[in-house]
């Protein structure tokens, strides 16, 4: 796995070079110095996944070493794409944790703030839960003008997410409805 490409070629190059000096001076055509095959330095992939882009649902294979993605390409068995990938699909590796623009820390912007501040999860989740409760309780409509029990809040809205997994969508829906959220929308409306 850790076979270093340059070291390998340096070693073999020296041998080839020596041989040339000794024996090949008179030949009219240069000896080719083809590269010596070494095993693939990255796996094609072992974990199947489904493309996060459009709704085709193409299959991909993710290869990771020590939790780090080294290669992603189409899953040749997948009936939709048979190993194929468009420009976006082919670029999936740049979506991995190595992309320096990926978020890796909770960020917080205080009211009127100019910049993001890094925060801890616990702090943020507690504060969000508190915000939700404050807004919900202040705006909650238990019964409407006609006396109907309606148990809703119109002060909290929820958007997203077609990019999420089914299980996530389901729980977000469950939680929001339990909170009384009626402004519940996502990409499908757009």
């Amino acid at each position: 796995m850790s076979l270093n490409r340059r070291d390998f070629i340096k070693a073999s190059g020296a041998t080839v070079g020596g041989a040339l000096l000794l024996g090949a001076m008179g030949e009219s055509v240069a000896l080719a110095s083809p590269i010596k095959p070494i095993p693939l330095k990255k796996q094609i992939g072992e974990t199947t996944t489904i493309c996060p882009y459009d709704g085709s649902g193409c299959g991909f294979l993710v290869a990771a070493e020590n939790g780090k993605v080294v290669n992603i390409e189409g899953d040749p068995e997948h009936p939709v794409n048979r190993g194929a990938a468009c420009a976006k699909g082919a670029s999936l590796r740049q979506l991995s944790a190595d992309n320096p623009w990926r978020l890796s820390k909770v960020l917080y912007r205080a009211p009127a703030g100019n910049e993001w501040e890094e925060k801890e999860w616990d702090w943020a989740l507690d504060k969000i839960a508190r915000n939700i409760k404050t807004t919900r309780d202040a705006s909650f409509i238990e019964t409407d003008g006609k006396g109907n029990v309606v148990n809703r809040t119109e002060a909290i809205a929820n958007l997203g997410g077609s990019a999420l997994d089914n299980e996530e969508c389901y729980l977000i829906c469950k939680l929001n409805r339990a909170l009384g959220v009626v402004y519940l929308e996502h990409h499908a409306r757009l």
Partner: protein
Amino acid sequence: MTNHWNDIANSDCVMAIGSNPAENHPAAFGHITIAQDRGAKLISIDPRFTRTSAKADVYAPLRSGTDIAFINGMIKYVLDDIDNNPDNYNMTYITEYTNAPYLVNPDYKGPADLEGLFSGYAGVSNEAENSKRKYNKSTWQYQKDATGVPIRDMTLQDPNCVFQLMKKHVARYTPEKVNAVCGTPVATFLEVCHTFAATGQKGKSGTILYAMGTTQHTYGTQNIRSYCLLQLLLANIGIAGGGINAMRGESNVQGSTDHCLLFHILPGYLKVPVDADATLADYLKRITPTSSDPLSLNWWKNTNKYVVSLLKAWYGDNATKDNDFGLHYLPKMESGKDYSHISLFEAMNDGIIKGLMCWGQNPAVGGPNSNQERAAMDKLDWMVVTDLWKTETAEFWKRPDADTANINTEVFLLPAKNSWEKEGSVTNSSRWMQWRYKASDGPGEAEDDLWMTDQLAKRLMKLYAEEGGPSAESITKMDWNYGAGHPDVHAVAKEINGYDLTTGKLMNSFANLTADGSTSSGNWLYCNSYVEPEAEPDAPIPGNRSSRRSLEDGPFNIGLYSRWAWCWPVNRRIIYNRAAVDLDGNPWDEEHPVVKWNPAAGTSGAWQGDVIDGGGLPMNQGGHYPFIMKSDGHSSLFGAGMAEGPLPEHYEPWETPVDNAMSNQTSNPAFKIWHPNEHGTSDKYPIVCSTYRVCEQWQGGQMTRNMPWVIEAQPEAFVEMSEELAAEKNIANGEKVIVESARGKVNVVALVTKRYKPFQMNGKSVHQVGVVWHWGYTGLSTGDSANLLTPHVGDANTMIPEYKAFLVDVKKV
């Protein structure tokens, strides 16, 4: 999708309208190529010559927003041809499987009689007052016999039957009118008609592939209906290689819709309760369709079972018969009030909405009239965004014209994991639910949204248990047990599938769900997806059918791949497949049978092939009507449920450079107008504009605009325009220009191309341009979003915003 990706290869004619599969569903386009190799024709109908058009056998340009005129013209061609060559069409299908023979109330009148309106309109032509922009639909109803069963004329000759009404309706859409409305040359239009109508023959199939070019109009739903009508007349629904197929633009927009992150429905497309639903019984009565016809299966009659099972999944033991299974824990929306995307942002702008949670969505780029939507966010007290990136939405307070110091919104930006850094399932356009695994680590402290939701729920449950609050029980009584640490995604998936609460075993089918509280199912459509291990032992995750990877072609070798992943409902790969056979249960297309009645099988015959829609016997043996999800069992050529009319009628977009060539009613009489003052007129904005995507970028761009490889391939926002327009405006290819609408303006690169041509409509020339909308002000590649231009108007039925046809002007910088 009624059908699925692989099935496109079975088609004899593929019509891409309102879609651009080569660019927006590129990997799935391979199935179109296979069909073409088999001799199938590809028709591309688009205002602009796209990469799909480049591969098409027939390309027809049409002005943005004129699909209905075009398709009605095709329907007229088909109906005329049926008169002349009935043998070329499947008349049995039309009379037996659709509502063509249904008799409509004789008082019904259509646009041919009423200058573009249907009978029952509350206002007058071009009514401006929102409260009057609606119909009383009483004249649109069927004539019924004494038992309440609709009356049919199987000869299709009665002047009040749907078939004749439709004929009268479309008679006005002559090829010349189509040209006058759409700008499509008559010869090209007729070539499309002739090519696609050839699929009306028994044994031939044609499919319509559509996407947002169809839906994102003030009459988007009617656009789809016009396709349905055409496909039903050509007997193309239910068969292999047929169908009308909505190609979804996001990996799980199908699944997120199935789980109903939408204001008007609960998981499984169950209508949400409203204020007047005082009891469960009231609620069920309101939302459950009925049918008096014993031959109509009316599947939605099971609504009560699905509702109760959902409530059991959400509130567990706290959902009892005595408390209406916890129905009243849920919010009830105000009757008739719209809470959709546009309304949501209007409410935010009005200061009603104080807090916003945004899960991987980027409305600051993707929302219509996004200048206004961005400004509305200033009024929030707090906002939570979960994403992989710093999106425009999360950084709305950093937008170019933001008054940052006076924006008092607290913003929490939570780092999320991407799709292979966590485990769970997604559902593609084909309705295939496919399991994904964790393959690598996320960056730093990134977490998945499941964990975040679980954490918030746990903290809120604790807060409400400790401190109480209005309807605290809605939260504290939830059945929320997915583990103490990281939530177990399999537990969630199983809850969605549902349990037999008596035995504790996973349900195997929604057919067995009950309304007495003895079963649970978080989403009845997904019941059958995650079963007991012994019911699906060979799956990589035993019991989890979405993890299946068998490459068996499936029954009849038509590429169903029935044992690859899992597909709702109950693994039925082609829905409405009852329509794929004749009355005896024999397939119309022997070469590509979807299902088939085998009288020799079992004791008294059985269905073979795909999972049959609804079971039972063939119709000739007393079986039910084929369209089981319709209350009357027949597919609707005439749709009384629509807001703006039971038949699709051409209206101009809200902003249009021309008068409506079909009637005096300029635009859809039933959609809501939010800001009449933001209406652009053609004297100031003479050019039609559409927004769209390209293959190399994605949606609001938050994903791809941080990915150097694709940025390199498509680096900047651009506006495509014809050489003729560029010459008029003295614009050179590659230079920066300003595109301006009544809402805003964008500064983008001019891409001057032969692929746009001015539309010649009955002598009038109209220019159209197109702007890609992927860009915004954050990320590695920045630029103006085309949605600065789009209006806050939406479809009359669904409120999908109008993104595809509005007016602009183009200027040199």
